[in-house]
């Protein structure tokens, strides 16, 4: 399926006085999209809403062309959902567990068994498919959950923290597998994760929510352009150069001999070279800095008033975010 797969208009969900989703208007195109946000931002509520499981307070939306208010069954029949936590029956073997998931979607028993073998091979569990799930490692359980989600070849795969608890090897394999689903299978993925690297590796778009509000959505590349920086490698007087850049109003960020300054316009390059010549400092390297998703997250959180040093400060903590400064009531920054 191409085009827009998820579209919501002023989606609002309230639990009593608590606003879980606040006037959220989303438009997600086919492909891989990352869903980011701190704990309590409303990610789970959004996922349940997209699955058509909860009644909305107001607003409307469509997933794969089906109304989330009235056509929940049709949505869930065409979506594969991979939960974050354990959801497998410990006493069953993998092949029958996956088959049962196919039957719950509505597949015939024989076809479900056939597909179970196929998808278990795809997720790398071909030789382990008759093993009892209780003996599986975390990586194998995650792979089984993925197999359960893709047995019916869904148009949209919603993955909630797919690399949760995995070691680096298993994590790499899981991400590769998800990538294949998008690229080879031409399916769409909505991936919720607190690991920026994972999202960046799989997704070309992100949706970032905070306190039930949408704060950023779109292509990662486009969003990264909000703050371009120039990275400078200096030699022979880094402190002098830093002082000169500060005096010129460029607010450098320095780590040893490497500095980054905000690129204000084309003249910033000339200004940096001029300052280097004046201070007698060699510039060994100067280039546009390619920001990561982590940088993007920090910029957005900075604009929201959070003094976080890394995404882990907000995304990985349980309960209240460990923010230094209280967040303003309205998100700013014109994002």
């Amino acid at each position, binding site marked *: 399926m191409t085009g827009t797969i998820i579209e919501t208009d002023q989606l609002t969900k309230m639990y009593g006085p608590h606003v879980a989703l606040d006037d959220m208007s989303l438009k997600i195109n086919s492909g891989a999209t990352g869903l980011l946000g701190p704990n309590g931002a409303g990610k*789970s509520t959004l*996922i*349940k809403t997209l*699955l058509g*499981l909860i009644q909305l307070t107001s607003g409307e939306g469509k997933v794969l062309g089906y109304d989330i208010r009235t056509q*929940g*069954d*049709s949505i*869930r*029949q065409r*979506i594969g*959902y991979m*939960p*974050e*936590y*354990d*959801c*497998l*029956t*410990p*006493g*069953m*073997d993998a092949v*029958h567990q996956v*088959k*049962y*998931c196919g*039957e*719950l*979607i*509505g*597949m*015939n*028993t024989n*076809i479900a068994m056939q*597909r179970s073998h*196929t*998808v278990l091979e*795809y997720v*790398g569990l*071909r030789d382990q498919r008759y093993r009892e799930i209780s003996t599986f490692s975390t990586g194998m359980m995650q792979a089984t959950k993925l197999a*359960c989600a893709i047995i*019916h*070849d869904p148009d949209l795969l919603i993955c*909630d923290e797919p690399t949760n608890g995995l070691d680096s090897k298993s994590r790499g394999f899981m991400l*590769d*597998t998800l990538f*294949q*689903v998008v690229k*080879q*299978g031409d399916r769409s993925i909505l991936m919720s994760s607190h690991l920026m690297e994972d999202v960046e590796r799989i997704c070309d778009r992100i949706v970032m929510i905070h306190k039930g509000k949408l704060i950023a959505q779109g292509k990662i590349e486009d969003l990264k352009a909000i703050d371009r920086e120039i990275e400078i490698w200096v*030699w*022979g*007087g*880094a402190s002098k150069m830093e002082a000169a850049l500060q005096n010129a109003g460029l607010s450098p960020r320095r780590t040893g*001999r490497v500095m980054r300054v905000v690129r204000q316009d084309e003249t910033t390059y000339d200004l940096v070279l001029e300052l280097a010549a004046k201070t007698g400092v060699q510039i060994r390297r100067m280039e546009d800095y390619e920001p990561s998703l982590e940088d993007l997250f920090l910029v957005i959180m900075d604009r929201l008033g959070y003094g976080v040093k890394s995404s882990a400060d907000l995304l990985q903590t349980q309960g209240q975010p460990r923010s230094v400064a209280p967040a303003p009531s309205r998100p700013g920054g014109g994002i």
Partner: protein
Amino acid sequence: MADEVPNSNDLFDDIFEDDRPAAPPLPTPQPINLEKQVPTDAEFLGEKGGVVTGRGRMEAAFGSGDGDETATAQVAQVANEVTGGTLFHQIYTPWRGELNSRWVRNWAILRYHVYGLFSKGHKPWPVMTKLIIFGVLIFSISDLAMLAIGAISGEEMIERISGISRGNMYGHVLSFWFRNACTYPIVTALIIGGMISEDRRNGTSALYFSRPINRRDYAAMKFLSVALILTVVVLVTLTAYYLGAILVGGEGWAYVMDTGLIFLGTFAAGVLLVFTYTSIGLALSSVSSGKFFPAVSFIGIILGTKLVAFLISALFNSSAIYLISPYDCLAHVGQWMLGLNHTYEHPASWSLVMLLVMNAVSLYVLSARVSSLEVTRE
């Protein structure tokens, strides 16, 4: 002095100043010619000029190479001759088949729970549960076995004792000792123990509700699964007993006309028993996240309320207290349906109303708790 100490930033600057004498050029590597290193006067195995080669070592180990020209051998392929071969090639296989309707999905849930008692690949029931259910099933058809023994042996006494009567039919379903004291509540407790609570504990509820299964269907199929297993144990054995009595005794239509209503009354009482035990059991299973609590609580409710009612009624000389006991309410209604003498002083309608109340409360609890099962954990 401090001025003479170089700045750490400038320590390496002299590397790039080119005022040092040039280092001598490195010698050009020459290819090693092994043939030149072999001494020409070497001798090996009596052969002048022979060198210690791999072939020479093989001949030393396995004898001469005579006859090798005609021999053939299966040898392993060397790696560079292998043209292909991949251990694992990940290929996404699309599937565009038809998906069945709601009733097929519901049937899958029912089959998963019931077939698990007989075959692998469905709900993994513990072996002890399977054995106890099988044992109770065998015990439940013991009255049919007695009938068969009476018919085979020709002993009228045995046939009369174990034959079809209001008392025997009541006894098959509603007798307290032994069936409702020891077997049926235990079977129910074993079945309902993990029916919903394990879904909560293992998170498997997410598998159901993230698929096109609504909570009403989920609860209904769980209910039907438990009820079906109890039906086999209680009602199928009752039917087998009744039909067996007709066949063993060679009875005709008149006998069926005489006893048919008794059978139907007993069957209806059995349905009430199965329904009540299932609804109370599943309500208990839905409020817990383990198997032990629902099972013990169920036995406690069935046997405990009867014991309490028995003790209090002995003190106050009133049977109304038995209304708190689900078993006694069932027994009272069953006596009324079968036309037996009542062993309770209060009207049977009170027991019927209490049964309805108990079932309504249980189903409400079940419904409310199933609604609280989560797809995502927060």
